[in-house]
């Protein structure tokens, strides 16, 4: 008779099976956490614990993790090289709600299928993903929440841009 393994162990076994298969052509992934889209937002957090804005800032600035500043400029004076392929992140927390920010990072293609912004928490429609990244979203659920929490705090308008509209009052 088979010994029933505790759930945590089964999950571990599943995770290492996914890692072992990472060199195969097809993507085999642990299922992502479900996301509930409401209108143009994902109002509910992907994790139980709250995001950490300091960790979020580090991810946004890291060009091998968040990659954000490859495309976006933003209010980061210490970062000399910022891209100009995407809107400035300055004041984005005042322009968009937390849920709107979450949707744009999880899967912006839901709003604009042509967008060049990567879908950070979706495996849909991916082709020829390099072995090292197979089966993994670009950011983990906890990292998404860290980034969203950090972005909600980017409320200051650009310096000299006093007239920038603040669409939503602070909660």
């Amino acid at each position, binding site marked *: 008779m088979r010994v029933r393994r505790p759930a945590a162990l089964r999950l571990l076994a599943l995770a290492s099976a996914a890692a072992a298969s990472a060199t195969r052509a097809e993507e085999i992934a642990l299922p992502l956490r479900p996301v509930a889209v409401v209108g143009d937002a994902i109002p509910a957090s992907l994790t139980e614990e709250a995001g950490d804005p300091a960790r979020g800032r580090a991810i946004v600035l890291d*060009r091998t993790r968040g*990659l954000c*500043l*490859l*495309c976006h400029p933003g209010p980061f004076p210490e970062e*000399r*090289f*910022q*891209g*100009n*392929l995407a809107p400035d992140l300055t004041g984005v927390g005042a322009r968009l709600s937390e849920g709107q920010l979450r949707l744009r990072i999880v899967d912006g293609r839901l709003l604009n299928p042509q967008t*060049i912004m*990567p*879908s950070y928490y979706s495996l849909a*429609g*991916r*082709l*020829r*993903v*390099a*072995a*090292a*990244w197979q089966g*993994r979203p*670009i950011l983990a659920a906890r990292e998404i929440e860290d980034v969203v929490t950090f972005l909600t705090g980017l409320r200051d308008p650009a310096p000299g841009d006093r007239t920038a509209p603040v669409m939503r009052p602070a909660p």
Partner: protein
Amino acid sequence: MIRSAVLVLAGLILAAEPAFPGGIAPSDKRSGLAEMGPELQAMQRDDTAHPGMLWVQDGADLWARAPTGGAPACSGCHGEARASMRGVAARYPAWDARNGRPIDLQDRINLCRRTHQHVEPLAYESADLLGLTAFVATQSRGMPIAPPEDPRLAPARREGRALFEARMGQLGLSCAICHDDHWGRHLGAAAIPQGHPTGYPLYRLEWQGMGSLQRRLRNCMSGMRAEPYPFGAPDYIALELYLAERAAPLPVETPALRP
């Protein structure tokens, strides 16, 4: 009603289809050379300061050296490269009738090694293959890229265009997103060039050495977090064919220099 919807749709499709390969107007077409600062441009133009010329010189030596086994050197059959190889690189990749497939210049050189010199092909990215290829391509310096109109190349060229426009990798980007739609903009610190294959093999400062066009394409694919094709894969030849068509008639720059 339906008719007008179809018309609108047709209009949209027409509007979406760029008029030129890559949607880059001929008057806007420019080499990655134009994207570099004046110091690097000067270094590329000065053969005595250009580190890539060391490889070209090694290639010249190999051209004249007979392999062991009694077969003639390249020069034994082709004579002076300055005359016989002039313009050759400008029309590669080309059709290899013997094997019934398109090949690029480095494959052509390895074919001569195998069929005419009866020696092993040189390894991809080896100093010898880069040197010989650069030496042969340098004989076309300044000549316009002129892809052959051979209809047998058309299917692979179409395939290359489809690959260029396909989203791939973990980031879901395509070559076209960067090189057709956002050239001239900045991706972090890097200026995005139009992505023309004008100078290969070339010396890249980041590599601190010479590399082939396939090595460059692998770099871009890794940046997209896509699985690069193995060296010599038909997918690269297809991409190289499309890139050549897209770049014509820019001049051959081999050996170019890039950051």
